[in-house]
């Protein structure tokens, strides 16, 4: 009973958040509603006794990914309300409806067709039963470092490559030639060297430009 009530309220919070993400006019408000949805999902995880997943859900999704979203929204300056009447990509709306409907249909079919329930919890097969003597944290740790060790390490490598790639891509612009072509941020003030000291060379350039 307690599980049902918690699920009911958790699901309500999740759905309200999800609708809010779509409906909100302001990108920052959408991000806030997304956090609400993620927290609701964490609550559902706790009800399912997947405590570790719930914690990781908050730490990784709410704590890192949405923070990055917000960073991008704020720094790109797209944090103003937008007119949703103008469609940036033609034909996107009907396609989105078709995609959403088919995903929903797939999910419903899966729940209806699966004999042991969608997660296998109802299965009589002892292999698929959860052992209540071991915590979910220990179970995830064991599986991750035995069965899925290779996949785990490949993911780690992929993430490292992603980070290094991002650094390389952002730095490629700052070669000396390209920097020359860029407009200085402020024409009348000498900029600072990366160390914070006054950059004498730059002052010279400003004087040359002025003359």
């Amino acid at each position, binding site marked *: 009973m307690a599980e049902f009530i918690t699920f009911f309220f958790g699901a309500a919070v999740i759905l309200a958040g999800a609708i809010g993400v779509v409906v909100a006019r*302001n990108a*920052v*408000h959408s991000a*806030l509603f997304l*956090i609400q949805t993620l927290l609701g999902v964490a609550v559902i995880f706790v009800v399912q006794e997947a*405590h*570790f997943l*719930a*914690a*990781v859900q*908050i*730490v990784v999704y*709410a*704590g*890192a990914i949405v*923070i990055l979203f*917000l*960073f991008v929204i*704020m*720094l790109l300056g797209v*944090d103003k309300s937008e007119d949703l009447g103008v469609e940036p990509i033609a034909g996107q709306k009907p396609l989105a409806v078709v995609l959403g409907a088919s995903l929903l249909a797939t999910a419903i079919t899966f729940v209806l067709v699966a004999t042991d329930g969608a997660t296998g919890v109802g299965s009589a097969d002892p292999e698929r039963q959860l052992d209540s003597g071991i*915590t*979910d*944290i220990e179970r995830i740790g064991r599986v991750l470092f035995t069965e899925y060790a290779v996949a785990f390490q490949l993911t780690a490598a992929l993430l490292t490559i992603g980070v290094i790639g991002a650094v390389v891509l952002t730095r490629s612009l*700052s*070669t*000396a030639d390209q*920097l*020359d072509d860029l407009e200085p941020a402020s024409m009348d003030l000498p900029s600072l*060297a*990366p*160390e*914070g000291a006054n*950059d004498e*060379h*730059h002052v*010279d*350039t400003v004087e040359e430009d002025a003359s």
Partner: protein
Amino acid sequence: MMFAQDPLYAGDWLGDALITGLKVLVAFAFLLVAVMLNIWFLRKVISDFQNRIGPNTAGRWGILQSLADGIKLFFKEDLIPDNSDRFAFKLAPYLSLVPAFLVFAIIPIGGDFNGDDGDGVVSIFGHDTLLQVADPPVGVLWFLAMSSLAIYGVMLAGWSSGSKYPLIGSVRASAQMVSYEAALGLALASVLLVSGTLSTHAMVIDQSGEGPAFFGIENILPAWYLLPVGIVPFVVFIIAGTAELNHPPFDLVEAEQEIVGGFHTEYSSIRFALFFLAEFMNQITMGALLVTLFLGGPNGPALFFPEGWWIGVFWFFVKLMGFLFLLVWVRATLPRFRYDQLMDFGWKLLIPLSLGWFILLAFIQIGRDEDWSTAQFVGLGVGLAAAFVALAGMLTLAIRNARNERIEEMEDAHG
């Protein structure tokens, strides 16, 4: 994980609910009063450092000064800037405050952990329970989750104010908190490697009783995690924790000389008070967590073993006060970091240091599990040390190289 369960939830549900409610109330009231005293303590100690008297008018020794300040703040006019995003502006203080309260729920503040059956269980009105609000199986991950939520309060406050100083402050704050959370998490991971559990209650049980013999003398060292984990994660945790708190010398977030008040520049009245409350509450919680993770929580030093739950509470507060004094001491002594120094310090020193220490601890742990002989330990240890030296050298080279390149680029571009 049987002992991670609070024994409370075996009895009748009404009594359990009442006891849980009582514990929540006590924790809530305790945090509010502690913040009041913490502010007074800070102001008194810092005026001692600066050879002045400090608050001395409201109440004896000025102890009611924070209460007076709080009442004054509550009755001030509440301003909302025209340019602000009203929804987010009103939401932000609560996003700061609520996680600050929630983290404290996992801190064990007392209980009798002595002897073989010392499991910290106390009896309140005939109900067996623990002296902490909750003991979730994820334990300290709860702290990480809540501190990552707390960033939103600061970030939204700065953005929604609709003015540039708060925005700069909040971008600084979120970059700083995200960066130092990595070092903090790695220091935490070192403790988890030794403890083998996430539950704070199980950790405190593990740290009770006598520690290892000290040069053959028994019963002199406590079993605190500080000894097996080592001094490096402890120091990294204190530094990264101070940075997480945006406490001097890491208070670039609200650097008065540069960006007025940072993210809370536009806030006034009760909303400002809520930010202030959250900041000081986080100091107390960070100290409590440090005590739990490294200094044995409510466990006293090994030499001293009286009975009773109150002695645990006593030791807990003694250690917590030590941390709070350290914070004030640092605040009074060190000047503020420059922003690039802050980032260099976090990413290029603290993170590699705690990561290296983590690998070292894992090495020792595996050696113990596999029963390595001394020769194996020495041989593999030399190899590991060589790898460390090589890595440290590569890191230093990379940092120096990047720095030289930056200077050259600047010279080429402008010279």
